[in-house]
């Protein structure tokens, strides 16, 4: 239990240990701890941000869904309107076409009637001539009596 040079040796050893600890032990461990602290803080911040983003995304998706529904309704409405329009259009066209056909047919009928009448007229004059000749027993000069005949025909 004597105080001797061990005292100096211990002081030197102590200084070396402290130096070693300060140079090689303390800094890397503290750095790693700080880094982990930062990582955890970052992770928590990221989680918060992600949560916030999720909320926003949910809100936006609801919005989009609502818009889509509205648009779909609109499209259906438009389609219905368009269908009605098309039907109406077709109806109108059909009516026009029908009318046209009717008019054509009427004209044709009139023409046929006219033609038949003409034919009849000529035939009537011939019949009248034949009849008259039979009654008179001789040829009637058509030219001589054309005035008469024409008068008759026009009366038919």
């Amino acid at each position, binding site marked *: *239990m004597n105080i001797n040079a061990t005292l100096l040796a211990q*002081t030197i050893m102590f200084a070396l240990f402290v130096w070693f600890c300060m140079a090689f032990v303390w800094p890397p461990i503290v750095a790693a701890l700080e880094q982990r602290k930062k990582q955890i803080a970052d992770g928590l911040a990221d989680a918060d941000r992600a949560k916030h983003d999720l909320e926003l995304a949910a809100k936006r998706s609801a919005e989009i869904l609502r818009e889509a529904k509205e648009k779909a309704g609109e499209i259906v409405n438009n389609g219905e309107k368009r269908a009605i329009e098309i039907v109406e259009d077709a109806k109108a066209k059909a009516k026009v076409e029908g009318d046209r056909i009717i008019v054509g047919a009427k004209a044709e009928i009139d023409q046929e009637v006219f033609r038949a009448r003409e034919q009849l007229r000529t035939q009537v004059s011939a019949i009248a001539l034949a009849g008259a000749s039979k009654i008179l027993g001789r040829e009637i000069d058509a030219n001589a009596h054309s005035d008469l005949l024409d008068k008759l025909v026009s009366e038919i």
Partner: protein
Amino acid sequence: MSSEAHTSAEYIKHHLQNLTFGHLPNGTWGVAHSAEQAKEMGFWALNLDTFFMSLILGAGFLLLFRSVAKSITSGTPSGVQNFVEWALEFIDSSVRGSFSGKNKLVGPLALTIFFWVFTMNLMDLLPIDYVPLLMTTLGVPFFKIVPSTDPNATFGMAIGVFILVLYYSVKMKGLGGFVGELTLQPFGKWGMPVNLLLEGVNLIAKPISLALRLFGNMYAGEMIFILIALMGGAWAGMTVGSATLYGSQIFLSLGWAIFHILIVTLQAFIFMTLTVVYMDMAHQEHH
């Protein structure tokens, strides 16, 4: 208890004697074989047991920490890294609690002191006779396994701390500020001699109390282990008295060892905390 040839006094003396290497009376260098020889060696002698035990323990824990520091990851820690990180954070929070200045030295200083003192103190828990007996068998006359029961070790550390305190006192306050602190308070400049006496004692008391507190606690603890060990050494055949003493030794050793775990840790913690506090005082401007 070692051999029966020893009396109780010899046994105690043997356990309290360091393995001292120095200049022998016959003119050669060697290991002292008795307390008287060790004393005659004077100052220029080295306590080999203290030196090597503290070297092995200090280097051991530092290399453990260093191996972790080399492969440390900021990801998920595992194994010994958990322990090292816990230890470092414990030291760091203690330092933050009592040191208000900014100094990169204080953290590593506190860590080194705590673990060095702790491991040195921990040697006290090894069975008291094993290592000396082993060493005697190997031809080594003495071996004190607990370096902190050697005042050289505790004073060596305390002097190291004292040098740092002086250095930072002068660095932070300037030489004038430091001298002023020693001489101009508490009684103003007319009470200068009294001030110097009071503050001087205050200053010198720091390393001395630091060293003596640790030494005293560990030495006393060691002494009690020795005394407990003597009980079983009083073995005198299969008598009731001997058996009782032998049994008492087992229970008392166990009890004292368990209590000593507290002292071992506490003394290391006190040494560290006081060092940090002294460093803090050195950094603080006095008004």
